């Protein structure tokens, strides 16, 4: 395989101090090792509340791991991960900027000329199907449109690796499949490394080269890895109907089901 991974986690553990004095510290993820090759689309699935977002925040450099190493392109990470773009689960656009200025924000932070930044932002708006919507403020856009703006906002900076935290979980099923196809299309153009977090196994299989299954939290760790050998280019709604997809789904679900039930039981017991 490739000598240098785009992103590598080595034995990463993350423990949070207890909220109340005397309580035991909470270990969100424990001894997680993960390699993402350049150009690889990796999905991470796991039961809700298993620390998936923590893992992504560590990769982004928003949280420092308690122990273990994070490497980007072979170099140890300190502070924010400058190679990474992050697509958040919640709305993260600047509400006081219109769509164009939101997409241009990252360029402006890097001191690109306002005119040049606007021009490139406009290009990206067209690429995500929002040409002509540049003057709209986030509250004037639908949930799906806001996600497109967020996608353009992240990709305009040409990050080497894109981290996505359940980005489409708040969208309705139709919009969601449209967005998934769009992500695949944008990805196929320049094959960035992608780490895609989701609790939706079908979404994970349809999009990825590889699916990593996490155990139920606390002290989450990977418990299985599945290469997805479905042919590309894929259409996310059609690929779901193929025999190979169903086979993979059954195989991974067998492993995931036990964790989901366990996670559910733990949540219920509190």
């Amino acid at each position, binding site marked *: 395989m490739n000598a240098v991974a785009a992103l590598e986690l080595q034995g990463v553990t993350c423990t949070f101090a207890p909220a109340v004095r005397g309580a035991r510290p909470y270990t969100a993820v424990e001894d997680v090792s993960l390699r993402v090759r350049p150009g690889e689309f990796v999905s991470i699935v796991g039961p809700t509340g298993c620390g998936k977002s923590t893992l992504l925040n560590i990769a*982004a450099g*928003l949280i420092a791991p308690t122990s273990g190493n994070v490497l980007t392109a072979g170099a140890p990470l300190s502070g*924010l991960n*400058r190679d*990474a*773009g*992050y697509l*958040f689960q*919640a*709305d*993260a*656009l*600047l*509400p*006081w*900027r*219109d769509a164009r200025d939101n997409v241009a*924000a*990252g360029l402006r*932070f*890097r001191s690109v000329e306002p005119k040049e930044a606007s021009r490139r932002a406009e290009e990206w708006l067209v690429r995500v199907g929002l040409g002509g919507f540049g003057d709209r*403020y*986030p*509250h*004037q*856009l*639908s949930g*799906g*449109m806001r996600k497109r703006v*967020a996608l353009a*906002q*992240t990709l305009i*900076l040409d990050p080497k690796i894109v981290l996505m935290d359940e980005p489409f979980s708040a969208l309705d099923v139709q*919009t969601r499949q449209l967005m998934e196809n769009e992500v695949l299309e944008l990805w196929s153009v320049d094959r960035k490394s992608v780490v895609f977090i989701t609790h939706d196994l079908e979404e994970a299989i349809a999009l990825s080269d590889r699916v990593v299954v996490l155990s139920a939290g606390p002290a989450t760790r990977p418990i299985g890895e599945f290469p997805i050998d479905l042919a590309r280019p894929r259409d996310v709604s059609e690929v779901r109907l193929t025999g190979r997809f169903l086979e993979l789904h059954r195989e991974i679900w067998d492993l995931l089901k036990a964790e989901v039930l366990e996670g559910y039981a733990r949540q219920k017991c509190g």
Partner: protein
Amino acid sequence: MHGKSVDSRHIFAGRFLLLVGLFLVWQVLTATGILPRFFFGTPLVVLENAASWFVSGKIYKHLGITLIETVLAFGGGTLLGLVVGLWLALSPGPSSLLEPYIKGANAMPRVILAPIFSVWFGLGILSKVALGITLVFFIVFFNVYEGVREVSPVVLANARMLGATRRQLLRHVYLPSATSWVFSSLHTSVGMAFVGAVVGEYLGSSAGVGYLILQAEGAFDINTVFAGILVLTAFALLLDWIVTMLERRFLRWRPTGLSVETH
């Protein structure tokens, strides 16, 4: 408030009629002697007095001074509140150090300071501006402080991931977020700036609408007192309207009712 509904003309007519009605009731009650004219004045004379001020031009100097005091207090207090609010909200150390002092200064009835300011800054404009600033400052300060703390952590994390430096976060995230909170407080603070100016004049001055009212009270001229109050109220409404216009200009990004589109 938003959108032009079919009813907006009726509302305007209704508001105007209400005003006319109030004056009519006042007129009838004082004309019939149910309310003593000496204490309650007569609306017709009040209006006449107010009109003659404008016709003779006597009011302009006083009104100008009161408005200058108000605008200076409003601007100064807002700017100071914004700067100090941003600073303290972003620096936990000084913030917790100063907390009891700020709470104390806010709880103190600051109108009491007016005579002290007269001694410090004289009977001119400055002492009134100082009083107005102490009134406006805290309103804006607390709103900015709250506004900065309420910034969505996701928006903040996103801006950081997009490469914003600390300075850029201040300018592109904290400041706009605080601004929206400041604007919601400006209606209150413009009123407070006005109160500072007029109370200051009332307690010691040689010009201003507050001074006119004080003089009229000294002469038991209740009609002139009411005329002064009337003029002040009209200009307070005008200032409030200006704030509303500024708000529309600067807060265009804020959702107003249901303007969300579907896919």
